[in-house]
């Protein structure tokens, strides 16, 4: 019988980019920066993956959606 897996062996996903909340607001006119937070299917990474706080993640979501509306970023990859 195989031993049970240890809880400490769970794979840890490293956040993409740390961001201070004091940094300038995330801009919808900067698709190069925003693209870092999309997966190949162009969906937004979760907070766990981006490493953002709640407010920054909301700003990111809003900026990406505005950028998509203007055709700067794709809706799907």
């Amino acid at each position, binding site marked *: 019988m195989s031993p049970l897996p240890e809880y400490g062996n769970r794979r840890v996903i490293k956040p993409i980019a740390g961001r201070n909340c004091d940094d300038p607001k995330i801009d919808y006119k900067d698709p190069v920066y925003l693209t870092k937070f999309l997966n190949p299917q162009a969906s937004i990474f979760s907070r766990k993956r981006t490493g953002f706080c709640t407010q920054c993640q909301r700003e990111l979501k809003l900026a990406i959606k*505005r950028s998509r509306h*203007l*055709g*700067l970023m*794709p809706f799907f990859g």
Partner: protein
Amino acid sequence: MFLLNNQAVRTDWASAKSAVTDLLHKHGAKVLTARRWDERQLAYKIRGCLRATFLLVHYEHQGPGVATVRRDLDIEERILRYLILKVETIPAGEMEASQAELEAGFTVPVPPRDDEVVLTPIEPPKMDDEVEDVVDMVAEVEA
């Protein structure tokens, strides 16, 4: 932010820009800044266009609302899409950039065609000294 049809921009930039500013004036808005932000390829087709020119406008509007402005913007053919946002202050440098566009010597580059593919040269990957040595050794052995 307004997306302008490149066909209108090719014909005359001033008239394409005035399509937005005149419409805003018509609804009682005061245009503070209006400048060409960029000309870019779009991520998807908008009204059959793959490229568009972006016009960034800051204006004051104290009317009943933006519903009537939106209605007219939807009808205007030269405007592919728009995004109206509320901002507290005008970002630094916007006024200067807008004034620079109003000066006599300002010219707008002719936008490329929709089907024109703009290729950017790919730089070869940089090799470390050790890798270069190995490549040289392999070349010597093969010779």
